[in-house]
């Protein structure tokens, strides 16, 4: 079993990660709207009610504030709740509990207590649900000390990072992507397959350009990297941040120093998006001296997500646009 893998979707990797942790540790439980018989708005808890029962797969009222507060209180007193936020946009109603309470409590109490809680957020656009159901709001949380933020981009990473998040003793914002629940990949079956938080993963080694990304955009970046390699012989290094907070600065800077060319990609709005922070971090570091040119960014346009699927698609970086930017960086076209 140790090295066995299975082809499965992100959705199934999530269910597997949560279920394994719930089998392993009595104090882990899942709560959220329609996580029970409905199996989650995105099917990410199908079958779990049947295995774990109502006490550990807790359907809640439509009360995001109480859900998040309750989870935090439970976490402070010895439980390890996982909250299904469903659409990340609804996290607006959880901001006090996450930002003013969970993130700050341990610090304000002088290092006492801990809040092991995971908020699973379905982020991003791509399913035609318009402006109030399509946001990737990770930048709000990376700005706040005391919260970890993770955004894995493959089914295997989803499993390994989610398990790490559940085992971590701090509040973790976990991004999953509406448009990628069906994305498939090989996933290790080992119930002790846990990836480290705070470490970036070089998904592709390269020498010409560093493309730094995370979450939903990883898939497109990887495809673009392969394609420019084939078409133009460009060797792209893909740095998958995987954890946004705390950020693995060393991995980023090392790659930048190696290639001297940087493209940053995320699916959140460009202005104020997390890749802007990474760009700024590079620009103020010693890696600046290794830069061959501007630090480019590709992100979602600064518009509310339109309902129309053509406009919706156009606002997010495509493989084509990523390729164009890579080639621009190496002056190939």
């Amino acid at each position, binding site marked *: 079993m140790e090295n066995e893998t299975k082809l499965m979707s992100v959705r199934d990797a999530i269910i597997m990660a949560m279920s394994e942790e719930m089998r392993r540790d009595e104090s882990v439980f899942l709560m959220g*709207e*329609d996580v029970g018989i409905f199996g989650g708005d995105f099917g990410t808890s199908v079958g779990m009610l049947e295995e774990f029962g109502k006490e550990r797969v807790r359907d809640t009222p439509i009360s995001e504030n109480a859900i998040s507060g309750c989870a935090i209180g439970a976490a402070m007193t010895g439980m390890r709740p996982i909250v299904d936020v469903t659409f990340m*946009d609804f996290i607006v109603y959880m901001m006090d509990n996450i930002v003013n309470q969970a993130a700050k409590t341990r610090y304000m109490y002088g290092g006492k207590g801990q809040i092991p809680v995971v908020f699973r957020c379905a982020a991003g656009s791509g399913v035609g649900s318009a402006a109030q*159901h399509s946001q990737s709001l990770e930048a709000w949380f990376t700005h706040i000390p005391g919260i970890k933020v993770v955004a894995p981009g493959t089914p295997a990473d989803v499993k390994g990072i989610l398990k790490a998040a559940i085992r971590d003793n701090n509040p973790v914002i976990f991004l999953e992507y509406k448009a990628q629940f069906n994305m498939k990949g090989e996933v290790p079956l080992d119930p002790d397959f846990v990836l480290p938080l705070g470490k970036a993963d070089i998904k592709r080694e390269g020498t010409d350009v560093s493309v730094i990304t995370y979450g939903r955009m990883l898939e497109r970046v990887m495809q673009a990297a392969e394609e420019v390699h084939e078409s133009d012989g460009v060797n792209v290094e893909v740095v998958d941040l995987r954890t946004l907070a705390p950020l693995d600065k060393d991995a980023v800077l090392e790659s930048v120093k190696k290639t001297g060319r940087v493209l940053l990609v995320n699916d959140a709005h460009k202005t104020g998006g997390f890749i802007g922070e990474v760009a700024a971090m590079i620009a103020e570091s010693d890696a600046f001296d290794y830069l061959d040119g501007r630090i480019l960014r590709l992100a979602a346009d600064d518009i509310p997500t*339109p309902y*129309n699927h053509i406009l919706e698609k156009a606002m997010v970086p495509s493989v084509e646009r990523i390729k164009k930017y890579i080639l621009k960086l190496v002056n190939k076209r």
Partner: protein
Amino acid sequence: MSNNNAVQMLLCRIILIYAFPTKILRKLIMAKKKTSETALSKEKLLHMYKLMADIRYFDNRVNQLVKKGKVPGMTHFSVGEEAASVGAIAAIGEGDLITSNHRGHGQTIAMEIDLNEMMAEIIGRATGTCKGKGGSMHIADLDKGNLGANGIVGGGMGMAIGAALTQKMKKTGKIVVCFFGDGAVNEGTFHETMNLASIWKLPVIFYSINNMYGISTPISSVINIDYNYQRACAYGIPGHFIEDGNNVMDVYNKFEELVKYVREGNGPVLVESLTYRWYGHSTSDPGKYRTKAEVDEWKKKDPLVKYSKYLTDNKLATQKELDAIEKASKEAVEESVEFAFNSPEPSLESAFEDIFAP
């Protein structure tokens, strides 16, 4: 000691159920109403039928399109709940306002939206009500007083009390109806807006359309009282119950009363009607959470059938007239589908417009 609590709880329960007009009282009031019903003009009665038919056929058609993969986004259907919206909106006046929620088609159509533009919006075209940018969950019709559907549960409540505050400050004499579901009463915004409206005596009717579920969650499992309207007591305002939300005249009569009360400056009210949605929650829904028997039972209480029976039994309309209305509805819906699919996709540039007001 625990006795004391038990007594309290019993009292509390009794009160919650009987604080508001008992069944008998309600019957009496209804009886009184029965006579006044005919006060409505035939034109109005038939128009209400038309709106209910429009909702029914419009949403049936959208559902067909969804199944064929022709709707590129999320929608929620009002089929089965036609009376709950039409009865309420028939009772408000010119210049009155509404706010709605994700399941807004019923209210939107009852507020007399252009069906062509509405269908085009749901299909996502440039000719749509929102130029294809909003979709089903964000259709508004500001000129006609519809402040819009809303994708956030409880999201329209703040807008509703704010719109009501405007009416009060500008002394327009207009009122606001705030539509939401049963599940929405557990959002904090329900509490805060009800309270603020109650202390400022704002002209707003909070209207909970209870279709018994929030997605898969039965309302009975997420409140510890029998009905949502009973929460009015926490704000010192009247709570009202429309037992048969599928009976459009019951809804209308209750709203006629409430609109008058609120318009007179007495402050807000909370009202709840019981109804049922025939389809799943949204575009996809396996529906494991309710039985076929339950759905079938409710389909027997079809609001359109009820209303047509009422109209024909009381000789307020002939079956022929009603058939003609239904036919016209179906045609209008077909026309809207044609209009929508013949409309252009919005241009890429248009995505960058309309963010800020000048």
